[in-house]
Structure formats: C-alpha cells, structure tokens
C-alpha cells in the first residue's frame, strides 16, 4: 500500500509526506495533476489525497479519472476553499470523503 499526495502547495505537500512517513507508510508526492497522471494509475490498495484546487488539471478531474479505473484506489479530497465552492465541486463527483484545511493529523490517520 502506498499513499499518493497530489497537492500544489509545497508546505502542505511536504508536511503530509512527513506525516505519512512518520506513520510508517510509503508516500509519493505530486505537485500537480499532470505529474500524477503521468506516473500511471495507483494500485487498488493505495490511498490518494487530492487537493481540489490544483492549477492546470483540476482536483475534480483527477478524482473523476481515478473513478474510471477498473480497480480504483481509495480517494480523499482535501481543500481550503470556502464551503460553497467545495460543494459545487463535489456535486459533480462520485461520492468522495472530504477533509478541509487546516488538516488535523488524526483525520488523516483515520484513512491510513
């Protein structure tokens, strides 16, 4: 099992990576949706944390793409956007758990 982190903010990406590593998991971090897609589909037992507000290919697009995979990994959306914006983005998506920033480590750990 591998943890994928798709997050454009350097601090958040790096801190998530540190945290997940501290919990003893192998983590892979991507600064945008494009580099995540290029890396190929994750394994079915993997977990993908996707920031909704990515530059370029949006977080929603990444989540939609993951949902089309035959053996889709678990996906957790993260966002610091206002509630209304988030709702608008999630409405068009397959049901996806959401964590709002600032993130609590316990909330992350609950998915690991």
């Amino acid at each position, binding site marked *: 099992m591998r943890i994928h982190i798709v997050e454009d*903010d350097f*601090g*958040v990406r*790096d*801190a*998530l990576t*540190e*945290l997940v*590593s*501290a*919990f003893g998991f192998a983590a892979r971090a991507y600064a945008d949706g494009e580099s995540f897609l290029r890396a190929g589909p994750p394994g079915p037992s993997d977990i993908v944390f996707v920031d909704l*507000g990515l*530059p*370029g290919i949006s977080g929603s697009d990444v989540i939609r793409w993951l949902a089309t995979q035959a053996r889709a990994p678990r996906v957790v959306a993260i966002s*610091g*956007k*206002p509630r209304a914006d988030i709702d608008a983005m999630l409405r068009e998506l397959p049901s996806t758990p959401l964590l709002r*920033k*600032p*993130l*609590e*480590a316990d909330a*992350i750990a609950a998915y690991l």
Partner: protein
Amino acid sequence: MHQSTTGGGDGQAGEQPAIRADVDPGGHPGLGSVSDARWASILNTAVDGIIVIDEQARIMIFNRACERMFGFAAEEVVGRNVAMLMPPEHAADHDAYVEGYMRTGHRRIIGIGREVRARHRDGTLFPIDLSVGEAPTPDGRQFVGILRDLTSRKDAERRLNELQADLIRLARVSALDEMGSALAHELNQPLTAIMLYLQAVGREFARAKEMGHTAEADARADAILEKARREAHRAGSIIQRIRSLVEKRAPERKEVELNTIVDDAVDLTIIGQDRNVTIVRDYQAGLPTLRIDPVQIQQVVVNLVRNAYEAVKGRRGGRIVVSTSQDDRHALVAIEDSGPGIPREVLTDLFQAFKTGKRSGMGLGLAISRTIAQNHGGDLSVDPGGEGRGARFVVRLPLRPQDEERTEDDEPGETRAD
C-alpha cells in the same frame, strides 16, 4: 417713502414691509432715493446677506437673508451698532476701526472682502465671507456689507474630506473582504503544514521513546521542526502584509522605490487568484525614488490588478502585464490586461464613484484610485483597448513632488485686523 410701493411689477413687493430701510431711526433716508419697493424686493430676495450701516456703525438695512443667518428680525437690530453681530473680541474694537478709517482712510476690510466670523443670536460664531463697499450719500458715508454664510460650505468641505478618507479606507476594507476567503485559504496552507509537521515530530519522538534516541532520529526531528518554523514564518508574513494594507493610519509620504512597492502589491493581489493567468512584471531599473504614500499607492496597484483579473476571468490565455517606467516628469505604473477592453458606453462613467460599473464594483475602486493618484500630484488614466486589445490603466506620479508643501504657502499673509 417717496414712491408708491405698489405696482412694483411683482405682487409680492406690496406685502413686503420688510424693506428695513424704511425703519430708519436716525432720520436717515435709507439708501437715498432708491429705497423703493423694488429695492425691498431685491434686498429680500438676495441669497446673500446685505447689511448697510452708517458712519456710526448703526445698522440701517438688514435683509431677509441676514435674518435667517443671524436669527434676528430686522426690527431687532436696525438702529443698533453692527458690533452686536461680531465675535466679542472684534466687537469691542469695531467702532475704533470705523473711526480710524473715517479719519485716515486706512482700509482694513473695505473693498477687500475676506472670511470672518459672525455671531448668531444664540451666541455661536459662524464663518462668513464678508465684502464691504462704501457709498457716499448726502447724509454721510454708508457701508454696504455683503455676507455669504460659509457654514454649509465649510461643513460640506469637511464632510467631503471625511467621506473621502472613509471611502479610501472602505475600499481598502472591502478589497480585503473580497480577498478574505482567498486569504483564509492562503493562511490555511502554512497552518496545515505546521500542524502536520508537529504531528510528524510527535510520532518521531514517540518512536524514539520506545526504541531509544539515535543521532539520526534527532536530526530528522530537527529538520521537521525547522520546516514547521518556516511555515509559521510564512503565515506571519502573510498577516503582516495584509495588516499594512488595512490598518487605519494617517497618510504618510516617504521616499520609496516604486518597483519594490509595486512588486509587493502584485504579490499580495495574486494570492488566491486564478493561477492560470500569467502575470508579467516588467519594471524599469534605476527609477528615482518617489516621495509618496506607499500604502495608498499599493492600494491603487492592488485595485488595478484585481480589476485586470476580473477582466480576463474565464478567458483562455489570460495575461496581465504590470510595468513601471518614466517620462520626463513622471514615474508611470501601467497595468494591462488581455481582456476584452472597456466598452465606450462604460468609459465615460468609469471613474465615477457611484455609477454602478458594468464590471463588479470597479467604479468605487477606480474613483478612489484616481483620487489617490491626484492627491499625489499625479493622475490615473486608461486606454480602453477593445477590438482584440485589453484595457491599459496608467498611474502617473510626479518625479518631484510639487504639491505637498505648497498648500500652506498658498494662503497669502492675512492681515488680522478686522
């Protein structure tokens, strides 16, 4: 009176016994032969206050406008010394002034006109613009004072100034309000990182407790803590930059590098904005420092860049160019967008504060931005673009401030002797 008061052409004249000239206690024939109904009408419909006094400074004529201004009925003041309408410190000396003038011809106010204070019936003082002319009559000299109440104008000026200051602040606050969610988002990032870093360090410590400290584990924890500090610093600097924009403060001019403050303002504005918009910064090196209020000028730049974002919203290949340059007398800041340009019909009202702009809330911001630029002796202009070109706003700021110190010297040395 010599002539009939009826048939003066306007029916009112006959009902106006209020030609106070005919209440003439000293036996003076008012304004001579002209004191007829027509005169009464003129006097009493005049917007300005009109007072006529004789050589002894006794009030002969006190028109309607004066009654409103001073709160006295004409009957109450005619025949009395005009000093009753002056502030006490001048009232005491007025007779001596008049007498001095009669003797020496030395003018203090006659033929000059100036702003003085007058005393209302209730004792309050109010500013008036007073000009005094002199009329020789068979019965001696008379002095005609034309009075304009400056209270409302002063009030209006003061209110305008206050309003302007409020508006400038309001625009700052509302800009911040709109930026609020973007800023919350921006602060969220370092806060999230800090929280996660600290949890990660906690895990490292927990592990060290179980398995014993190793130099390697300590170094790892240190490295993470250092990263947490870096993020805390990032959060702090975001707050600092915002604070410098919103705190209420007196305008303050100092020597600053234009490029630096423009760049800071751009940094601040792009927070939370659409990152698919390209920002090009094209600053001319070696500009002389300017004596300006950096916060106000930054506010203008924030405003213009935010407008530019609005203009390119939803368009492919959005692009905003922020540039600085100079001509022979001005430093220039230009903000150009790749939007659709500004339609002609919007252009005329573009800088009007309370015309509802076609682009959301742009009017107020632009009106204030122009005011700020003009207060600095500069201006804000726009090339509206259109037909494939975006709008280009240009802020001009004088290289040498000419206006700042001058206001005080503008007042000619006033002779304080009325």
